[in-house]
């Protein structure tokens, strides 16, 4: 059964459990590289990060430690809901905390919603997001 599962079983027991996903110092060059990757030349990004940047803080670690072991087969992004409370600026130290809010399984698909919050060095909430991912069985995938 294990090789057929869409979501690794051990994650089903972790709904609602909070993890600290690390503390990240935001470097000017990282922000600049991100703005360049979107091809967004707005001079505002010399002193603050574009709003979508916050979604990537700790993203690599989240991908490696949560997404990769959790999704056993196909994986697509379903939705993002971002709430911005204040801009992220170079020099900030952002703590990322996340949890699985829910898992909804259908026959060949699973929708997993994560809630992630980002706080700064003053312990102020900077942003919160909900990310929903879709796990799917490869042989059933067509598109969309």
């Amino acid at each position, binding site marked *: 059964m294990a090789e057929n599962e869409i979501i690794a079983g051990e994650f089903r027991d972790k709904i609602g459990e909070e993890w600290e996903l690390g503390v990240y110092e935001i470097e000017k060059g990282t922000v600049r590289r*991100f703005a360049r990757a979107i091809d967004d030349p707005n001079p505002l990004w010399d002193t603050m990060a*574009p709003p979508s940047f916050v979604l990537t803080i700790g993203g*690599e670690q989240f991908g490696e430690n949560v997404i990769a072991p959790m999704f056993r087969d196909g994986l697509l992004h379903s939705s993002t809901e971002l709430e911005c409370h204040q801009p992220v600026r170079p020099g900030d130290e952002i703590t990322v905390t996340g949890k699985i809010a829910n898992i909804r399984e259908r026959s060949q698909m699973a929708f997993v919603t994560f809630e992630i919050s980002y706080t700064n060095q003053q312990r102020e909430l900077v942003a919160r997001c909900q990310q929903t991912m879709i796990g799917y069985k490869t042989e059933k995938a067509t598109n*969309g």
Partner: protein
Amino acid sequence: MGEQVYYDDVMVDGEIPPLVKKPTTRQLVMWAGASGDYYAIHYDKDFAQSKGLPKVIVHGQLVAGFLGQLITDWTGEKGSLRKLTCSYKGMNFPGEVITCRGKVSKKYIENGERYIECNIWAENDRGEKTVTGKAVITLPAHN
């Protein structure tokens, strides 16, 4: 980025100036590096096909970044993006044009702040909406 837009000048049903993008595979690799999202469906064709996809696809969150830019280009230095939601409904492929658009759905003042809500979306050159969402922003008053 044009002149500063003010709350009083925004009309419900008014359109946001569109933003046209054409991400290449190079841009996907740049965004992968900048975001830390190294999932191989975004740069390895064989891997993408092994996952049932026709070819390499654009990261949904890169399109979310384009939609963020649509808003921040419009709202200027004194505007502020408060909420951004994106639903990834269809796939975008590198080399194709993505046009980001938005339309004002609502404006209101709450706790002294001037809010604008917009429906936003990204469409491909066949006019299909591949990403749809909403943005909530605050804008300054005149003076």
